[in-house]
């Protein structure tokens, strides 16, 4: 049996390849590199731009050996008055699926939104969360023993009041999907003081323990806060066991929702170490009682 930690991020070569891969992902999502031949994304706000990003993410997940489903949705606007004047919201959630080693009905869900606010490349918010999930997708694919099925979901329209994740939560409630835990990654690429510290928002108690135990091994300072500030909101509202790790509360990106939220402001060493750490936490969750 191969243990997660042995294949994950233990050597410098692996860390280097993670950094290179994440640099490529963020460069493509922020317009530094073409997302498809001859096409550069300066933002991921309009439906057309988001569709291009969704196609790219689909391709990346498939390349990593995941099966992919697109949840295309149309949903009413946030209030009845707006419904009289505007068409319904239109978006795409990209859902990657990896089955457990032995059949089970339980799922571990990892999520990150791939849309951005208007007029911002959205490097930290939230190409960083997407890059973390994609790097973890590659590692999990190689993991031989998995106790639970894993879903990686790239949510659309988080910036429009979490439309994509709200639609997804309604779907899993309707289908009675058994969820072990939900891990939402948003704003996870900025660390100016180099202490690799993270904040955990509203973690379920058992998830908080996993995260704190591994943080000690990785020498990562952690702080827990309450509330909901991203796609964790609809999951918390529906009472799923959820955790939302993000940048240190006192050292958050100063370029939030601004045109300066660019590739250059991402701390790739921080992102890679966080990926390593989160990967290790997930390894523990997926391998627990598997041996």
């Amino acid at each position, binding site marked *: 049996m191969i243990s997660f930690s042995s294949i994950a991020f233990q050597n410098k070569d692996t860390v280097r390849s993670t950094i290179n891969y994440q640099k490529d992902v963020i460069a493509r999502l922020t317009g530094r590199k073409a997302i498809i031949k001859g096409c550069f994304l300066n933002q991921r706000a309009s439906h057309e731009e988001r569709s291009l990003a969704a196609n790219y993410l689909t391709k990346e997940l498939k390349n990593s050996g995941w099966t992919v489903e697109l949840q295309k949705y149309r949903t*009413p606007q946030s209030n009845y008055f*707006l*419904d009289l004047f*505007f068409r319904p919201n239109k978006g795409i959630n990209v859902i990657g699926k990896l089955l457990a080693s032995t059949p089970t009905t339980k799922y571990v869900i990892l999520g990150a939104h791939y849309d951005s606010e208007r007029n911002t490349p959205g490097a930290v918010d939230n190409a960083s969360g997407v890059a973390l999930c994609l790097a973890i997708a590659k590692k999990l694919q190689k993991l031989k023993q998995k106790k639970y099925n894993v879903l990686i979901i790239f949510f659309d329209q988080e910036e*429009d009041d979490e439309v994509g994740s709200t639609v997804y939560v309604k779907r899993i409630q309707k289908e009675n999907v058994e969820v072990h835990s939900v891990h939402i990654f948003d704003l996870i690429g900025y660390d100016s003081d180099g202490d690799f510290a993270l904040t955990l928002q509203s973690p379920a108690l058992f998830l908080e323990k996993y995260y704190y135990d591994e943080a000690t091994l990785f020498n990562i300072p952690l702080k827990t806060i309450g509330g909901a500030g991203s796609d964790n909101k609809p999951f918390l509202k529906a009472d799923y066991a959820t955790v939302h790790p993000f940048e240190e509360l006192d050292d958050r990106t100063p370029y939030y929702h601004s045109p300066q939220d660019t590739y250059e402001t991402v701390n790739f060493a921080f992102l890679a170490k966080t990926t390593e750490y989160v990967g290790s936490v997930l390894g523990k969750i997926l391998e627990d009682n598997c041996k």
Partner: protein
Amino acid sequence: MNKSKINQSILLLSFLPMLIHMTQHLRAKSYFPLFFLLVVVIVLSSLWFFKIVKGKKVVTIWCFFLVGYGLLRIALVGLIFLAESGVPSDIFYQIDNCYFVSTTLIISAGIWLLINKKGW
């Protein structure tokens, strides 16, 4: 085609933008625009059916409704550009050529029917 036929055609066509809008919402299982249009149509039909107002007056009310709806669409654009940062991207990018063309058609139909109401 005489003027009365033209007016009748425009009156029928004036329902088209709202019917299209309603259909788009029905596909998203959003029923409020359908409910709203039904209420308007039922109220106007009842006014005519129970002879509370004459047929021409019902058309006039419908014309005012069309013009008011069109003007509200324009006012919303103004509001959106005034408070741009708080506006959801999905709504922001719906303000395109198609939005302005349908708004213009709605207002034009309302004004045309109002001006030519004597020709009925």
